[in-house]
């Protein structure tokens, strides 16, 4: 089969730090090639070199086995039929779907140079339909759900009728059905001879869809395998350099008193009549599709938004929480799913980030005492073994996994009794993932009540004592551990109740 793309001994460094060294990679026509590696392994950098956002310091890029190419802008790669879907949907909120799809590539009238709107919208219409989705191309993107924005991204890529399609964690914020849909599309394209580079942290997805898989670690090329020749453990080994025998070590903890209870919690358009209890030592899983209302419920409990009905009981006493500060005061902590936006202050150092919730404890006579702060921080840096050059290192220069650890440390330092973890392992590498799971168990052992929100059903099944399934803002299932099955949870999440 013909080679669409060949990268030979690519090296790239940013201000001293080598992001890639001698990485080679190739993509055949009509194949789906998975690109795996822990966070900061260099996957995105490789992708950005292929799309022309970055230029390699060394190494060569060969198209169709013959043409040596060098891309200086994304337009160059676009013109060579390379299109990419980025994980963080990069869309223009205030522009229409159609404009988002064709921005920078609108067809214009030869003489008057004005954009051919009719043509634009009709082409957009076709493309959207080809995905069997129903959205008006004139809709402003800011009115779409995250998933729909992802789809816009995909359509954008298709519009290039690309020979090479790069999917950088396209599934990280899609629901199961949307993922299946996406895979259908991917396979369709594949059958038409398109080569697809597929990046994901969900190994099962890799096995489901990829033909070959290439692993890079710390900017080094580790190897390329046929998916049929390897299994999960082998793959994990390649990624982390060590094997992880047990992904989800569930340790039995005796469940004590109920500590937090919500009764008939409502908020128009988000969730309705939500009631549940969580006990000390319990890990309460929360499943459901993106946008089902899981995060909204958490935010309402944590005081980001105001519930419009129902009540929250803490240790049996009704409490009203109007601000996260009050939640923390009461003993409820929340880890947001997007750490960059809501979790961390990237430009500040680790110390400053971790101590935010307990700043007053670092203060003596009005001044922050660095030594106290250091002591408090070190404890958690060691506990979570955050890999850093020191407590003064800026968080933005940490790897994704370590950033997440810092975010978690911030939750722990608040000494909350109830901890809400929203997608704590989203987009972090397998190694850290295991560490996080370990930690969650530890917390449960220590008698904390934990609400674990996750889109990864295996994770929920592995970790939880009980699982609530949310669908369209309502709790549709409350499963005991003994009744956990992928199918039950999924069908409930999709709203197909088999009662």
């Amino acid at each position: 089969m013909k080679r669409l793309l060949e990268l030979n001994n690519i090296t790239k460094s940013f201000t001293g730090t080598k992001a890639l060294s001698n990485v080679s990679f190739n993509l055949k026509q009509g194949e789906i090639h998975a690109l795996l590696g822990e966070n900061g392994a260099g996957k995105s950098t490789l992708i950005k070199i292929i799309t022309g956002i970055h230029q390699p310091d060394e190494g060569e890029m060969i198209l169709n086995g013959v043409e040596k190419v060098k891309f200086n802008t994304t337009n160059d790669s676009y013109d060579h039929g390379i299109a990419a879907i980025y994980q963080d949907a990069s869309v223009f909120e205030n522009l229409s779907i159609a404009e988002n799809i064709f921005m920078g590539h609108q067809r214009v009238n030869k003489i008057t140079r004005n954009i051919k709107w009719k043509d634009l919208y009709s082409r957009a219409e076709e493309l959207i339909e080809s995905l069997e989705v129903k959205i008006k191309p004139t809709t402003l993107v800011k009115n779409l759900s995250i998933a729909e924005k992802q789809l816009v991204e995909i359509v954008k890529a298709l519009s290039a009728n690309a020979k090479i399609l790069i999917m950088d964690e396209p599934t990280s914020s899609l629901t199961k059905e949307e993922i299946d849909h996406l895979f259908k599309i991917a396979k369709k394209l594949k059958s038409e001879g398109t080569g697809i580079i597929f990046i994901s942290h969900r190994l099962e997805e890799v096995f489901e869809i990829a033909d070959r898989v290439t692993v890079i670690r710390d900017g080094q090329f580790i190897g390329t395998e046929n998916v049929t020749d390897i299994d999960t453990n082998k793959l994990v080994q390649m990624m982390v350099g060590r094997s992880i025998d047990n992904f989800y070590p569930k340790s039995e903890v005796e469940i004590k008193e109920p500590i937090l209870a919500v009764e008939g919690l409502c908020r128009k358009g988000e969730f309705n009549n939500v009631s549940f209890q969580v006990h000390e030592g319990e890990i309460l899983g929360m499943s459901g599709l993106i946008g089902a209302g899981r995060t909204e419920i958490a935010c309402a409990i944590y005081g980001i938004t105001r519930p419009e009905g129902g009540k929250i009981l803490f240790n049996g006493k009704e409490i009203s929480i109007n601000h996260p500060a009050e939640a923390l005061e009461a003993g409820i902590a929340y880890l947001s799913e997007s750490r960059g936006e809501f979790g961390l202050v990237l430009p500040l150092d680790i110390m400053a980030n971790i101590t935010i919730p307990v700043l007053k404890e670092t203060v003596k006579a009005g001044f922050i005492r660095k030594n106290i702060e250091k002591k408090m921080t070190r404890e958690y840096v060691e506990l979570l073994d955050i890999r850093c050059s020191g407590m003064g290192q800026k968080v933005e220069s940490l790897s994704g996994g370590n950033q997440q650890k810092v975010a978690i440390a911030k939750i722990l330092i608040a000494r909350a009794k109830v901890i809400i973890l929203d997608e704590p392992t989203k987009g972090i590498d397998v190694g850290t993932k295991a560490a996080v799971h370990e930690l969650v168990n530890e917390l449960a052992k220590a008698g904390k009540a934990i609400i674990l929100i996750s889109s990864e059903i295996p994770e929920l099944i592995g970790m939880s004592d009980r699982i609530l399934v949310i669908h369209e803002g309502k709790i549709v299932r409350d499963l005991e551990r003994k009744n956990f099955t992928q199918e039950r949870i999924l069908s409930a999440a999709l709203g197909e109740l088999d009662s």
Partner: protein
Amino acid sequence: MPSIKNIPEVLTKTIKQREFAVLLVNIILIIIVGIRNPVFFTLENWKDLLMYGSILVFISIGQMMTMVTGGIDLSVGSILAFAGMSVGIIMRENPSFHPLLLTFFGVLIGLGCGLFNGLLIGKGKIPPLIATLATLSIFRGMVVLVSRSRWIVYGDITPGFKLIARGNTLGINNLMFAALIIAVLSYYFLNHTMTGREIYAYGDNKLAAKFVGISRMRIEFIVYMISGVLAGLGGVLWVSRVNTAQASTAVGYEMQTVAACVIGGVSIYGGVGSVIGVMLGALLFSIILNALELIGIVDFWKMSIQGLVILLAVIFDAIIAHRTKEQIRKQRRTFDAESNS
């Protein structure tokens, strides 16, 4: 997804609501003032009003473009004065020059200033607010330097030059004609050319813009250039309208243009803004000034009242925006419980 279906209506509605609101306020104001003082309705008055408004309109349009990219151009007032003063001097030295030639000079000077801003912001990566804050003083200083503290007075203005502002084209006063032309052109440019759309895209999401290969530098050069050119042209028309140019010409005018934009619903976060909105905003602003004149409101109240209007405009916007968000949220899904209750 059931969610999306009903949202576009909601949104278009609110968008209308804003422009509509400005329009409404305009009308109400016109009526009130008209009742208080019939002179308001005289053709004379409207001519003055619009002549004042015209310059504000197209300079505000330039301002809008910079704001759409998420920037701002505080130096328009100084550029206007600089261009006006320079052209005045050129005219004083060579009264024989054709008005159009002089206008061309004005535009050229504006272009130069705009390019300088563009260079600082596009190349030098200086935040627009500060860059233009600095050039505001620089260009203002240049005004006095070139004038060598001799003003351009009525006597220096050639009859031909006076006609720039007072003459008519197709029966419409030149100022308004210019404003209209510029408005139409900008509308076309912003809504029907790739560059125009790229300006919105860039202001909307700079990262995404980078991904689709929109050049940051190009966009910023373009908008500050346009803003400069329009300010330069404005300077010429201004001098031709008031027949004088001095050190303090158009001091603080940038605030008026920003005000017109804000009232017209331009988002200072970038990405949002329409020519029509800005025109209405500028009109509203001119009407207020004119009205205060006519109703004989004591001079000293004017400043506060202007400020109040701007404040009300933005508060109104904020409330509308908040409402929309709530509406969209509440319509994301409906629960049986609610539907039967």
